[in-house]
């Protein structure tokens, strides 16, 4: 066997049955501290696929290769930004994607810190945000995807990790 490939496989961390719960927990912790909001778990009680016109993404590279994304509608993203900044009135529109990107970054960092072999062997990219309507996030071919849906006030936030095979 190719020794480089063998070494790579030994160092690769694969998702297991606990990752959904860890992702749920990592996200709730970030929202509790930075958005002063308690999210509720909706997975299993709602149907559908991730939706919303604002998606923040952070790339993962190293022992785990993939993308962590957070998707919600524009109103939710604006509300999150407002709470993060402690704004009473309207939020500067330029700060909305910035806020969601930071949340995504913190969720990714918090998630990987909960998995021993990932904490020191997985790097995060600079986050980015996509805004618009009617787009679909397509998971990487043959990769695994973990999706968690959480309730934010009366709306939904979708958190997903698409793992490269």
């Amino acid at each position: 066997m190719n020794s480089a490939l063998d070494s790579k496989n030994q160092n690769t961390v694969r998702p297991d049955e606990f990752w959904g719960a860890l992702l749920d927990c990592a996200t709730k912790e970030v929202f509790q501290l930075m958005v002063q909001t308690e999210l509720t778990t909706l997975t299993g009680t709602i149907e559908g696929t991730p939706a919303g016109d604002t998606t923040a993404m952070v790339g993962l590279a190293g022992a785990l290769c993939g993308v962590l994304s957070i998707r919600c509608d524009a109103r939710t993203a604006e509300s999150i930004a407002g709470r993060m900044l402690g704004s009473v009135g309207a939020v500067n529109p330029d700060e909305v994607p910035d806020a969601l990107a930071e949340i995504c970054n913190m969720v990714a960092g918090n998630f990987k810190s909960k998995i021993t072999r990932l904490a020191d062997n997985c790097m995060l990219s600079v986050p980015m945000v996509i805004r618009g309507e009617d787009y679909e996030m397509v998971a990487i071919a043959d990769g695994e995807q973990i999706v968690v849906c959480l309730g934010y006030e009366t709306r939904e936030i979708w958190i997903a990790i698409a793992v490269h095979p």
Partner: protein
Amino acid sequence: MKRPRVLIVDDSSVMRKIVERSLRQAGIDLGEVVEAGNGIEALAAVREGPFDVILSDINMPAMDGIEFLRQLMTIDAAKGTPVIMVTTEGSESRVVEALSIGAKGYIRKPFTSDQIKERVAPLLEVLR
């Protein structure tokens, strides 16, 4: 007590505001607060005048927090300035690297204002 002059370095303007707000919530009576979006801007700010404390992110485009810290330590006038890394970085090796270069501590995002106070307030005691 002299009100501390603070430099906050982060590529997110939202996070820079949150760090400043957390410092104020922690009861720290801030003097001038200067913001920088990456290590290059931060070095330029440092060359314009001394700071009492610097809080810097690690993962940033253009120049990250580790390189900023490395270059900061070559500026004689800035060598004694305490630097706290504020980061999502769960990687111990990156944090250890920052501490070995000269950072005085680190705060992991997400954080509370109490955690900010715990790390920053002792560094400002010398201003009393």
